């Protein structure tokens, strides 16, 4: 942990004792982590993926007034295989969530998720609806949440900056995608009589059985 903290705040270059005095104007040292993260955070490709109202603001963010490409987030990729970032921009419905999870599973690591707006964060004004999922984080891990209904384009840019800060703090040594072990594939939820989160299937079975006995 302390390692990560050190990396987040590397010693100031000018005073770096590892570089001799006379070479300080000619030599640039950095850590591999810094270089890696610097490259990564400036070449995030979001997935071309809009759900609802927030998607309109997302498109406006990509247009010339706000120009997402300034951050190096140049292209919106229509294929999840080429995307690094999923912006969940809008209300997540039960009918849509299996597809979102499937898309997330298809994205290669490292992958990030931004929950844009109130709906993607926790259901938003439509939370009470019978076909609405109370936040995408019920199914896939989210890296940055944005409030607002809908967030202004600048608010979305602000979340990008937050995400860049997060990426800066990651270290090659600790990131999960270079570590042995299984990929954390999220089981795709199933549309039955209602949305079924397969991770909770056993619990649902037991509870429903208990409810039937009581009835």
């Amino acid at each position: 942990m302390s390692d990560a903290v050190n990396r987040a705040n590397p010693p100031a270059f000018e005073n770096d004792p590892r570089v001799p005095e006379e070479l300080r104007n000619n030599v640039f040292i950095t850590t591999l982590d810094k270089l890696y993260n610097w490259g990564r955070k400036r070449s995030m490709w979001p997935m071309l993926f809009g759900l609802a109202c927030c998607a309109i603001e997302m498109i406006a963010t990509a247009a010339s007034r706000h120009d997402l490409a300034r951050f190096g987030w140049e292209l919106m990729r229509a294929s999840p295989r080429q995307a690094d970032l999923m912006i969940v921009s809008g209300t997540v419905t039960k009918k849509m969530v299996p597809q979102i999870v499937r898309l997330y599973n298809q994205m290669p690591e490292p992958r990030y998720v931004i929950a844009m707006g109130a709906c993607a964060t926790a259901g938003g004004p439509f939370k009470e609806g019978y076909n609405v999922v109370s936040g995408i984080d019920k199914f896939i891990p989210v890296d940055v949440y944005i409030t607002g209904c809908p967030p202004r384009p600048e608010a979305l840019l602000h979340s990008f900056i937050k995400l860049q800060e997060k990426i800066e703090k990651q270290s090659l040594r600790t990131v999960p995608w270079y570590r042995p072990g299984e990929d954390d594939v999220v089981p795709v939820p199933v549309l039955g009589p209602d949305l079924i989160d397969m991770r909770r299937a056993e619990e649902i079975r037991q509870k429903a059985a208990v409810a039937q006995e009581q009835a």
Partner: protein
Amino acid sequence: MAEETKPAAPAAPAAKPAAAKPAAGHGATKAPPLAPMTPEMTELQQRFGESVLAPAPYVGLLLSDKSKLVEVATYLRDEMGYDSVTNLTAVDYIKDGYFEVVYHFQRSRGGEPFTLKLRVPRPQGNDLSEPVPSLTSVYAGAEFQEREVYDMFGIPFSNHPDLRRILLWEGFYGWPLRKDWKEAYYEGDTKPFESRWPGGHHQLAEERVPWADNVNYPLGFDPLNFHADPDAGLYDTMAEGVPGLAKRNGNGSTAPQPTGVGAAVSVFDRDRNNLADVDELQTDQIIVNMGPQHPSTHGVLRMVVKLDGETVTDLKLVLGYLHRNHEKIGERNTWLHNIPYTDRLDYICGLANEWGYVLTVEKMMGIKPPERAEYLRVLMAELTRIESHFWAIGFLLNDLGAFYTPALYFITERDLILDLFESVTGSRLMCNYFRFGGVSRDLTEAQLAHAKELAFERIPRKIDELEELLSENEIVKARTVGVGYLPAERSINYSLTGPCLRAAGVPYDIRRVEPYGIYDRFDFEIPVLYGADVYDRYRIRVMEMRQSLKIVQQCLQQMEQTKWGDIQTGKKNYNHRVPAGQAYGRVETPKGELGFYLVSDGGQNAYRYHVRSSSFINLTSLKEMTVGHKVADAVVILGSLDIVLGEVDR
């Protein structure tokens, strides 16, 4: 409910005075007034007899013999000129024990819609009700609307070509718009909820409910041992000529189905494997699922296309990926609460939606906004039309392959209009500007100057530039002329509205058909083109932008004579009571006819809140427009319809 003591079959057409007392909803004993007879109603009644057709409460005729429905509809279409079914919905009168299916028929040459109602007894529990004859053989535009009624109320339609759930999925438990169906996060029948004040300790909805999530399962449900097929029946009519599917359907649903988790998860995989069964490939026909995540479907729409080589031979739509339960929430909201929700219907043009809803409620309340507010409404609605058409054209070009550059130019213009919206109303998209009997804010001098700069200088210049760039562009013409042709009669029969219908030569625009607001004061034309193809749908939008601009310019000039700040009739109020009654109100949004069918029981909440959405109904005709074209054109045709998924799925 006010309808509580309604006679099952009104004995005599004793038309009581139409002014119903705004009785408190519950416990009202007065029978609702019967609809006053119009010449059209009399004609139909004479033709079929008074025992079959009697005046219904508030508005329209009540058909007592539902087996006569198709005959009545055919007569309406062929003899009386009602050539489209513009709105079709149902209302659950739970206390009276019946569902009422409501049809609004429309003449394409104009006039008020004709309302026909019919009742079916309410079934017990979760059962389906008695079937109602389908009107799809008379009106093609009834197809999706009947499926929606089936999906929401569990009213089956006999002889419907493809009766499956449309917004939800096959296998969903329950019929959501029935009044006795409660969702997982159900807190009360009406807002405001009592838990909010004065003892409002914050609690997440998850903490309140037994499943700790927004889900509900039937008693004794076993997720580990059941077969899920949310797409059941989808491919049935498309199977012919597709080897993998034919095999699957040959097995039919009677064959032993795999069960358990793996089975449930693998439904899609199984389909895919079957489709990719190369050994059995005998023809070129394959099925391709485009969407719900697809860059060209304008949102979360799923197009299932059957392809012969590159030619589309069949097309089906799967909707509901953005079904946000607008109507269920709307029936719990107070009248005022619904205004910001309507913004989120068609989120490109929120202001136009608000007008539709506010207009309908004002119709029931019998109030009118002051002069100044009328002008402000027109100003905002027409700017919305310009902004929406900019967007539509930009993304149509995107679909044509001009990736993002034209769209960028038009989004820049749109942003300038949104700047005005933001500075006046406070938000770029979700303006929440209209109020019952007025609007929320007036324009300051600076805002008026911004609007004038836009209306007189900037936008005219930009529309010229748009035309220069696109209208005679040979690539645009090569891709669009003659593509997606749907002749006028078919368009009308499909209940198509908006620019697409006018591009087919039908001068049907609600601003002229059933004028609302103060549109009669402006000098403008309803542009009509006759090509009925994608190119004319593009051109008509450009022409409409010019007409809208003309209205905005006149509006800004005439507005100077009105009194600044006079924007609200009566006192500003939040607990409106709407007199018991029923109303269908509609406006011309950039997408077409947006209608609201509202039923009030005299209380603070809508008893029934139905949105007749133009995007949704326009999609019915997509199949006929697309079949025979290349798959790349399917994308363009969809773009030319200019749908917004928030409005399609609601």
